[in-house]
């Protein structure tokens, strides 16, 4: 998108200091960029009120930090940096709140029972010594197999299976076509399955003792 204002737009606001002229100019910037800021903050299921609060906070910071804006900067990337930092802080706060919240399985809620730590925390097979050894060996093999993949293919795989991103999002992140993403994922799965096939059949057994 091209800037609706020349890069010195905010400089003008600073130079104008106070008064109606500055307010009018700032209003024009506010009208031009606020819709984009709202779309930016709508991710992660934020409520309209939260989106509006974050949008307002961006403009407050623009006003507060306007002296840090130099004429060598472009306004849009500067605004994006402010919005991005707010986005990141908000996300961290949400993640922290989520981590701090007690995790209660829905089954336990229905039964009214108190959850027990470690209850269903992992596959029973890992509880046995043989299962733990196999699990560790499988992780080593998976890690080695991932390392052997070409960089783009590995990144596709990580974004898809670790990050949970959709095909078109991976394509945007890696700057490749959706077809290429699909091809990379297909090849990655094929190679990993071939590499890990010995472990797929080695179902861990219960320790007889």
């Amino acid at each position: 998108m091209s800037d609706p204002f020349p890069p010195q737009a905010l400089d003008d606001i600073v130079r104008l200091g106070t008064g109606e002229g500055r307010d009018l100019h700032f209003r024009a910037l506010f009208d031009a960029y606020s819709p984009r800021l709202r779309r930016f903050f709508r991710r992660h299921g934020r409520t309209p009120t939260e989106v509006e609060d974050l949008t307002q906070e961006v403009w407050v910071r623009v006003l507060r930090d306007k002296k840090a804006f130099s004429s060598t900067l472009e306004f849009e990337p500067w605004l994006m940096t402010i919005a991005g930092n707010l986005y990141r802080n908000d996300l961290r706060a949400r993640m922290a709140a989520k981590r701090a919240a007690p995790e209660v399985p829905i089954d336990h809620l229905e039964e009214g029972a108190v959850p027990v730590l470690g209850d269903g925390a992992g596959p029973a097979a890992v509880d046995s010594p043989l299962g733990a050894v196999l699990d560790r060996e499988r992780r080593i093999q998976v890690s080695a197999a991932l390392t052997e993949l070409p960089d783009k293919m590995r990144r596709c795989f990580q974004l898809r299976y670790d990050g949970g991103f959709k095909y078109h999002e991976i394509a945007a992140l890696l700057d490749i076509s959706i077809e290429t993403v699909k091809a990379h994922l297909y090849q990655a799965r094929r190679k990993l399955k071939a590499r890990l096939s010995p472990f797929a059949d080695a179902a861990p057994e219960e320790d007889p003792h």
Partner: protein
Amino acid sequence: MSRQDPLAEAARAVAEPPGEPLAMETLVAWSRGELSPAEREAVEEHLARSPEDAELALALREFGDDLPEEELSPEHSATWDRLAGYLKTEAGGAAPAGARPEAGPAEPKVQVLPFVPPSPRSRPWMAWALAASLLATCVSLSWGIWQYRKASDAASGASVRPNTLIVDLVPNSHSGGLRGSEASAQQVFLDEADVTLTLAPPGDEPLRRVWGRLFDPAGAEIWSGRLQLSEGGAWTLTLRSTNMFRPGLYEIEIDERRESVTEPRARYTFRIAR
């Protein structure tokens, strides 16, 4: 994608920690396609390991996309009203009409004496004595300041590490800032809002963009990011904030990749003094 997918579980099991989040300026530059291929490669590698930053990167890339035609929401006006109030407050708005300033403390009554011109018969040697004493004071003050600077330089020099560039700053008449006294390729400029540190590359190293971390005199990291390669063949660091640049010894570590800054290729020390 199912959470039961064994490949997904495997990927999560071996996922490496993403390390430090990318600098926001880097993510913004990436979203605007302003990075070199090598830098883009490094960012993509980070994003593949950091879903949090990847999500943010997607949102930033979408920022420049066209918006569908839509009417501005009622919240838009409400938000502007609040900001307009903020603008007025910031401008130190006029006091409301009818407001009366509180009465200050009563001024003490003083007796005004008539002005008496100096006697034309005043002694001329007193003026010479005054001038001499002023001169002596100036000389002793200058000597004291010189001694103090010498002592502080010796004390701070003890902690300087090898591969060190020290730039002493002297008052600069230009825009009230401070400018380094060294050659133009090795100077620190402190302005009201910006600090530009230009470092000559060590040895015959090829010039390229590098990452850096800046530490304050207490050893705390106060900045990390990318240093821009200027046309003059030097690395330039531009920072904004005067407050954090208190007088003292600062250190900057630089390397080609952000990931390897923990073992920097070069370390510089510079001093900001008023």
